[in-house]
């Protein structure tokens, strides 16, 4: 399928904007759930770029593995987080980019925030010796989503990006080939994967197997009685509470003494 130049440029611009905007939103929004959704948008944008580069199989793989598999895992883990919606940290000092991408997040009301602060101050009496600054520091450690080196990291990232883009622009040119790839690229990839790159394929399979074993071993509850994760599995209700008032009456024709049922009674009913 040959697209003309205008269509190619429009598609490229759209997908590149989706990819870059999604990545930027992922790292700057205050809500972790939004981060997952933004990352999904970024992956879909890169998949569109892959398809535009006529690597259909890789684009499909990108959508299936990243969007379908990994992001479900990510969103599952986000639910473990403290404050995944970002309502506690949305009111902190934010740069304009962070403000843009975390628009619409509802703030916690100030009463709750004050209560939380007071509670945090009381819960750590050792920090009171350090004075007000220690308490403020601990507060920020609890609430903020980014590390204190955020500004340096932003400067470093901008420098890295500028250096990379400058290197790309200043480099003369690569030897561009005029060949067009075979439309049946999946067949070629399959042949290569089963022939020349057989060992890499098997190695990837072994790696996945080892990864599954490692993940299962790590997530298993511990063997020792003192393990915190074991309590949920071995805790038994030792003294169950008796049923105080049972509204159901016992079954049977008479509510008095239970009727004796013998084997002959059952046979007589037939």
């Amino acid at each position, binding site marked *: 399928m040959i697209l003309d130049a205008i269509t190619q440029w429009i598609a490229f611009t759209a997908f590149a904007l989706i990819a870059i905007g999604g990545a930027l939103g992922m790292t700057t929004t205050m809500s972790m759930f939004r981060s997952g959704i933004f990352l999904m948008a970024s992956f879909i944008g890169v998949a569109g770029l892959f398809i535009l580069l006529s690597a259909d199989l890789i684009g499909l793989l990108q959508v299936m593995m990243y969007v379908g598999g990994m992001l479900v895992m990510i969103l599952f883990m986000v639910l473990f987080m403290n404050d995944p919606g970002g309502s506690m940290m949305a009111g902190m000092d934010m740069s304009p980019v962070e403000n843009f991408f975390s628009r619409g997040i509802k703030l916690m009301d100030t009463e709750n925030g004050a209560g939380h602060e007071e509670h945090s101050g009381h819960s750590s009496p050792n920090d009171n010796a350090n004075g007000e600054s220690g308490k403020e520091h601990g507060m920020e450690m609890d609430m903020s989503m980014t590390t204190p080196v955020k500004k340096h990291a932003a400067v470093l*990232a901008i420098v890295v990006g500028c250096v990379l883009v400058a290197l790309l622009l200043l480099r003369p040119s690569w030897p561009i080939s005029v060949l067009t790839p075979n439309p049946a690229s999946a067949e070629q990839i399959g042949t290569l994967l089963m022939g020349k790159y057989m060992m890499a394929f098997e190695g990837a399979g072994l790696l996945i197997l080892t990864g599954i074993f490692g993940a299962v071993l790590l997530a298993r509850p511990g063997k020792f009685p003192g393990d915190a994760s074991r309590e949920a599995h071995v805790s038994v209700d030792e003294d169950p509470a008796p049923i105080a008032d049972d509204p159901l009456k016992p079954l049977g024709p008479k509510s008095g003494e239970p009727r004796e049922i013998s084997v002959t009674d059952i046979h007589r009913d037939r």
Partner: protein
Amino acid sequence: MAIPLTAYLIVAAILFAIGVYSVIAQRTAVMILMGIELLLNAIGLNLIAFWRYVRPDDYSAQIFTIIIVTIGAVEMGVGLAIMMLLYRNRQTVQVDKFEDLKG
């Protein structure tokens, strides 16, 4: 081939820079894993762009990308398992809190 190769490489470079920022500046382990996925994605975009423009008759680059995606998946699975274990032991996922080896 209306779009030059440099355009794709610039997109990949910007994605890489954002990933670097995300890995350094984020506090929780999930966000750091997301940043690493972004870095791997930028690498894959670079590989595919070079494949398309320089050697479109050799499909090794696509196999390289498939291997990268596989390694990313395994890394994500094991990383999330480690994070879950740490969460059960410490009740937090902020990587700055994990300062000692023996808890």
